[in-house]
């Protein structure tokens, strides 16, 4: 049906002798919301960091838009980074800039637009991310956790990337904000024609938003597929993850909604 936008082959990473990724293979299709799940410390965030060229894997290949990203030169890497957006777990908003300036910063750096147009585009992104317009002039430390996440998402979308990475988008949010975020992610994917790759622990997010989920554990991809498919897997680690008390509740919730 659609082509792979992100292709990871045979990726190995080790930290101080401990193997974090042991020949990991993954494929993300254009236009899907792809989630990476797994227990804490299984190398999910590391995987994102490697895709975004923040960290070098030991060996293997990562192809994005059909191009190997691990051996890009400076200019190619810049172009690649501009075509992707990343939202960090704790927002990573610049504390000396207000929300509007935070979102406008990539535009100011990489386009020749006038200040006025940059502010307008930044405001559009801020509204898309579901923030009230009064939040634009606030500084990150004046925002609540949920608003900070939305501001971080708005900044990730600033350059209209085709591919957006979300690191724990709902961690630390109250249930209401978290489900608001679920809807926001789906809405943005529909309206902006995005491909999203997210790392998450949030079972509700996995059940309700993700098109496909990869389950990482022991350095391997233990299973890839839709949540229903994955929850029927008989791998002990996956069963433990999805059939713990919280996993069951989220599953029932998902069935009820359907």
């Amino acid at each position, binding site marked *: 049906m659609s082509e792979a936008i992100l292709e990871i082959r045979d990726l190995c990473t080790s930290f101080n002798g401990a193997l974090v990724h042991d020949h990991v293979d993954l494929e993300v299709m254009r236009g899907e919301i792809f989630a990476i799940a797994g227990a804490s410390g299984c190398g999910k965030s590391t995987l994102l960091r490697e895709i975004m060229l923040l960290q070098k894997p030991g060996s293997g290949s990562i192809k994005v838009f059909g191009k190997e990203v691990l051996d890009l030169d400076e200019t190619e890497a810049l172009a690649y980074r501009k075509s992707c957006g990343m939202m960090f777990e704790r927002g990573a908003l610049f504390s000396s800039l207000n929300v509007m300036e935070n979102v406008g910063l990539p535009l100011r750096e990489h386009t020749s637009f006038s200040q006025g147009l940059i502010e307008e585009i930044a*405001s*559009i992104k801020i509204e898309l991310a579901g923030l009230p317009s009064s939040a634009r002039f606030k500084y990150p430390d004046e925002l609540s956790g949920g608003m900070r996440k939305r501001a971080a998402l708005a900044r990730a979308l600033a350059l*209209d990337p085709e591919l957006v990475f979300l690191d724990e988008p709902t961690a630390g949010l109250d249930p209401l904000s978290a489900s608001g975020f679920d809807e926001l992610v789906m809405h943005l994917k529909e309206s902006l024609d995005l491909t999203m790759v997210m790392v998450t622990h949030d079972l509700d997010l996995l059940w309700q938003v993700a098109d496909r989920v990869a389950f990482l554990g022991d350095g391997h991809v233990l299973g890839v597929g839709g949540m229903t498919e994955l929850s029927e897997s008989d791998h002990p680690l996956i069963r433990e993850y999805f059939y713990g008390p919280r996993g069951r509740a989220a599953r029932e919730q998902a069935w009820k909604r359907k």
Partner: protein
Amino acid sequence: MAAANAELIGSEIRLTGKWDLAGLAGFEKRIEDFSFEGIKRVDAQDIESMDTAGAWLIRKTFGAVEISGLKPEHALLVEMIAAPDMKEGAVPGHFLERLGKKAWGALHQSWSMLSFIGEAASALVRSTKIRWKPIWHNLQHAGFDALPIAGLLSFLMGIVIAYQGAEQLSRYGANIFVVNLVGLSMLRELGPLLTAIIIAGRSGSAFTAQIGTMRVTEEIDAMRTMGISPMDQLVLPKIFALLIALPLLTVYADIMGVLGGMIMASFSLDVGYVDFIDRFGASIKLSAFLVGIGKAPVFAAIIAVVGCFQGFQVSGGADSVGRQTTRSVVQSIFLVIVADAIFSVIFSLVNL
């Protein structure tokens, strides 16, 4: 790859090219010069691609005109982009208002500084046990580790004073007075002052950055909830450590400075080491040394209190830590020099 373009054909505008961030570079300028009088229709069927920036530009410039031929996905995008509400949020106030706020801020700052000193003093009175571990730790970092830089700088300072004095003194054949020059200026003024300034830059800034970062990461609050007073745990040990370290460093700086002067004197003034030391004992009174050392604890208290106080003033994030650290260093050096000037006045009044 075709850049975004708009062509005027009769009463119709034809939009072509890529209406995305890359394609729109420089287009904003051209679109401003366009005149839209009498335009009936916008033909958008040749637009190759579009993102939110492009959609917004189309909506902003051609919003009032009928747009035809948009591909469905582009139409959706243009539809979705609502005009952002651009009313200004933070308006910079009137000049007088800002002046007033600044003045009030300065007043408030000195008030909270005073109350911080009061809190530290009352914590000192109330504290039942001395926390040796953080004191040792601070002694090592603020004191021992500063030995090389404090020693080197005073040594160089001694050389410079002797060298500058040499020319003047040799003109009058008063070579031996280089001992008085170096001895008095190092022991009374430069030793303590130089050491205090080095420590303000080295340790005062470290205190502010440490406490400030702990505030940002809520470690200070965590400490309070555990019933550990940050005053006792963080501030008092730093004050104690500097009170011990700075006088000791000053003695060391005095020695190194005089040593520098001595070496320079023997090189450029033919005042031998033995003569220098003889003359030093005869002409420099103990009071000169004690006056210098006596100032060191006061400087130490200023540096530690200002460093810690500015750390607690941090609010928000990385930016604030940087600002308060700058303020801490500037303020403590300023106050050290002011205190030194006050000492000079007092000492001259009591004929020391």
